[in-house]
């Protein structure tokens, strides 16, 4: 992956860090997928498992932070090695946040699925989660393969997620206006949708960090911000 150092143990330490990131990534991916599956299938057992899984991410984030500090102190890395290590710290905190957001979705499962909910409520959310998961997987794949040329695509997809979120917001609002009994479930689903949208943002953050690790340059600042749900209002005569 990176050029060999004279000291093999340094390479081992760096590889250990990236392996730990990969482990966190795997957990985060699984947590998000399972949280949404638990929601759609109203499976409270699966939801509990997701909540428990979060402890792993918290512990790993700490471990990576500590390891990274030790490596910096011991090896005094420069240039790409330093970027690799600082990048690992940043990516691990993004992944930890993704885990938290997944856990939050799982915690809402019981409240949402208390009554029998119609399938149409979940269709949009599933599609949104599909986009965010694709985003997350691609970003972590880029981290694995270091093929930064795919990163522009990741940012485009973030735009798509934002647009989908805005549309979902509108849809859920309509259901609440149709029937006040939907309000409990829909409010929770709105939070779930927001969480998924945030997961997409964290994935984009990771993409930026990876780009920095590999090229040494930051991506341009202008980042698409397409979330327009703040301007969505319920129209009484709609």
């Amino acid at each position, binding site marked *: 992956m990176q050029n060999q150092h004279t000291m093999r143990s340094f390479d081992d330490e760096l590889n250990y860090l990236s*392996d730990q*990131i*990969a*482990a966190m990534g795997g957990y985060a991916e699984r947590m998000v997928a399972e949280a949404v599956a638990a929601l759609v299938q109203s499976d409270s057992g699966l939801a509990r498992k997701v909540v428990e899984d979060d402890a792993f991410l918290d512990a790993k984030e700490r471990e990576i932070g500590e390891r990274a500090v030790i490596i910096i102190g011991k090896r005094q890395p420069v240039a790409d090695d330093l970027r690799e290590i600082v990048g690992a710290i940043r990516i691990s905190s993004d992944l930890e946040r993704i885990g938290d957001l997944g856990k939050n979705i799982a915690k809402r499962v019981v409240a949402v699925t208390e009554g029998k909910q119609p399938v149409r409520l979940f269709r*949009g959310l599933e599609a949104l989660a599909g986009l965010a998961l694709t985003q997350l*997987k691609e970003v972590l794949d880029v981290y*694995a393969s270091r093929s930064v040329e795919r990163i522009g695509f990741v940012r485009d997809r973030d735009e798509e997620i934002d647009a*989908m979120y805005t549309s979902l917001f509108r849809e859920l609002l309509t259901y609440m206006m149709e029937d006040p009994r939907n309000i409990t479930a829909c409010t929770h689903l709105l939070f779930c949708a927001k969480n998924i949208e945030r997961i997409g943002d964290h994935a984009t953050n990771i993409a930026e960090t990876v780009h920095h690790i590999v090229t040494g340059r930051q991506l341009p600042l202008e980042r698409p911000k397409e979330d327009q749900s703040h301007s969505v209002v319920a129209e009484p005569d709609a």
Partner: protein
Amino acid sequence: MLRHIAKSVAPLKQALQTLANRKNTTEPSERPRVVRGDIDSLPAVYLAAAVLDPLYIFDGAGSILYSNEAADLAFGPMTKSVSLRLKFRAPEMHELVSRVISGAEESTAINYSERVPVERAYRVVASRIGNDTGLYVLMFKDQSEARRIDRMRADFIANASHELRTPLASVAGFIETLRGPARDDAKARENFLQIMQNQTQRMARLIDDLLSLSRLEMKPYQKPNAQLDVVALVRGVIESMRHIASENGVEIVSELGDAPLLVAGHSDELVQVFENLLENACKYGSSGERILVSAEQASPMDEVRVRVQDFGPGIPEEHIPRITERFYRVDVETSRTQKGTGLGLSIVKHILTRHDARLSVKSASGKGATFVVHFPPVPPSGTGAERA
């Protein structure tokens, strides 16, 4: 003397022949010496290359040393010596790899699935190679088919029962009326029978679309290898759509140009994509009276774009992200009168995902809609040979 030379050349010739046969599977530098028909000198990489299931060989640090062709096809080409744990991040996978490296005796199997781009499920086994090689092998057995069939059954029942119930209820209602109050009313009878016929046709279309979607989902995921000229393909589709266009009072204007544009794809599936897009443009954009079809590629390294533009009422912005979902309809009323099933664009999206291509939509109310299909550029000649 001469005979002696001829004798020593023979095995060399055989070895060269074997190498020539294998030249696509291994780099020149790693061709080991082979004695024909001798099992002891059989190189492991040859054996691994002959395995049709994805297979990786890795070392005690978890770095990938070798991936066979099936693995590259299924999970994308791998950079050498990259960590296996980075590529396969699932927690179960990490456990499996650590367990086998730490020297667990019996080889264990786990289930591994990838959800994107297409759902795939594998049974994965890891085991040590030999006693002191320090190498391990990871093998994948594709189980997607069985999983897909299960899922398809569940989805089909859910979707079909939901979507077929409406027309069925209406047919049942009319039958009741025909047997009761409208028994002797010839005019009403004719009218009702017409509605019933429309409803049964709708059910038939729905079943057709559901089946074609399910069939797509059933097919094993495989990146298309064949290259085809998308310009010629689209031109063919335009010809076949002329009658639908004239029925709807629109004209299809082709601005495709003459230069062929190559993409990787299955022609039947791509025909279905463009048929669906053009049919939609004819049906929902008919008020614009023309449809513009164009194709472009800025340079051989850029993506190929095919554009289908109509000048109808357009799609309200808030619906755009959702239109490829199953049974999502922008306007239920128009969709019904246009005999839509709500599945056309999901079929399109599904096919494009399998082609590594994507669909983008630009539209604003009152300004028509533009559907653009983006194909990835085809790698320069010698596909599949570029292994890092």
